[in-house]
């Protein structure tokens, strides 16, 4: 074996660049394909604890996340999707992967809802992010029909604790599955909207959409 010449002073940075140039980058399409395949294999092996995708909607980009049980989180852009994923990773499991399969059906139904053709979401939900009274509130919200509003007082009563009006309000304000669990249908007794995770404009838009029977005069967020 002949040894290479040792005359050149070591230059790790140049060496790294040299190897880098020599090997070339892996193109994005190839990586995207591998990521999709990984998510499928993970699902088959019961390792996909949280699958998510994003979608565009009239209330801005939405993040949809589901466990094997069902839809566990819908997040508005103002909540910061990256931060929401970190929360899910901490609260549920760090085995989080982008994967359409589990949430495509929800996305389709949300599209239909905004187009005016759907009044009821038919998807399994996973309420594990809410406990106790908050969970009772969310379970009740699922029973409020399209186009109907209810007061926080009425919601507190229906959820089993008429005095807990404030707690009913915070359960709505922290609803992990907005749109599908229709916390936007809960308004103050004086008729004003109250808090909403997606902001007041989004809540206004949803109530306008439903009040018009799915055919709002001005689609989009408006003012």
């Amino acid at each position: 074996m002949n040894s290479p010449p040792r005359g050149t002073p070591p230059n790790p940075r140049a060496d790294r660049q040299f190897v880098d140039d020599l090997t070339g980058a892996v193109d994005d399409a190839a990586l995207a394909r591998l990521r999709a395949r990984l998510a499928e294999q993970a699902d088959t092996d019961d390792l996909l604890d949280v699958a998510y995708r994003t979608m565009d909607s009239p209330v801005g980009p939405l993040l949809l996340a589901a466990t094997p049980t069902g839809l566990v989180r819908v997040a508005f852009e103002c909540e910061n999707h990256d931060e929401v994923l970190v929360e899910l990773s901490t609260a549920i499991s760090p085995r989080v992967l982008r994967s359409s399969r589990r949430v495509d059906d929800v996305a389709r139904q949300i599209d239909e809802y905004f187009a005016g053709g759907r009044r009821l979401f038919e998807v399994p939900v996973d309420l594990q992010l809410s406990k106790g009274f908050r969970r009772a509130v969310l379970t009740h919200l699922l029973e409020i029909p399209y186009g109907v509003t209810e007061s926080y007082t009425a919601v507190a009563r229906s959820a089993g604790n008429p005095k807990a009006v404030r707690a009913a309000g915070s359960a709505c304000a922290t609803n992990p599955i907005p749109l599908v669990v229709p916390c936007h249908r809960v308004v103050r007794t004086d008729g004003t909207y109250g808090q909403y995770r997606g902001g007041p404009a989004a809540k206004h838009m949803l109530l306008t959409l439903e009040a018009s029977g799915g055919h709002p005069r001005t689609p989009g967020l408006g003012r």
Partner: protein
Amino acid sequence: MQPFDAIVVEHGQVVMRVCRALLGPVEADDAWSETFLAALRAYPDLRPGSNVRGWLVTIAHNKAIDQIRARLRVPVPAGELPERLSGGEPGPEPADSELQSALGALPPKQRGAVVYRYLADLPYAEVAALLECSQAAARRSAADGIARLRRHYGKEPS
């Protein structure tokens, strides 16, 4: 804890380059998938503050060895048994396999040292652990490998 998806986004590229360097473009896809699937399985138990890239490259290293062993169990005519870490055969190669032909010509230890030190950017302590040799030997293998590549590709450090 970071969602695993963020780990794939951050390190998917470098792990793929390592897999290609060790196995060639065709088998690299499977090694990449097996590496990240194994990592996903173990991820919840990963100690906080761990060097994630080093951890992934170690898994890729083991998967590559598994694949090479599996490949060697496939009967091939004695004269064609690959003597290098990668079994890349001579002849026309796909366009993106310059790396394969470049690094494929290196002896296994030099190739491993170059890949883990310069492509994966691991410290020599980890390179040595992967190659089961001393740090000094790992350092020497990396230097020899680089020198050999530079002779082949005519590029001198500027």
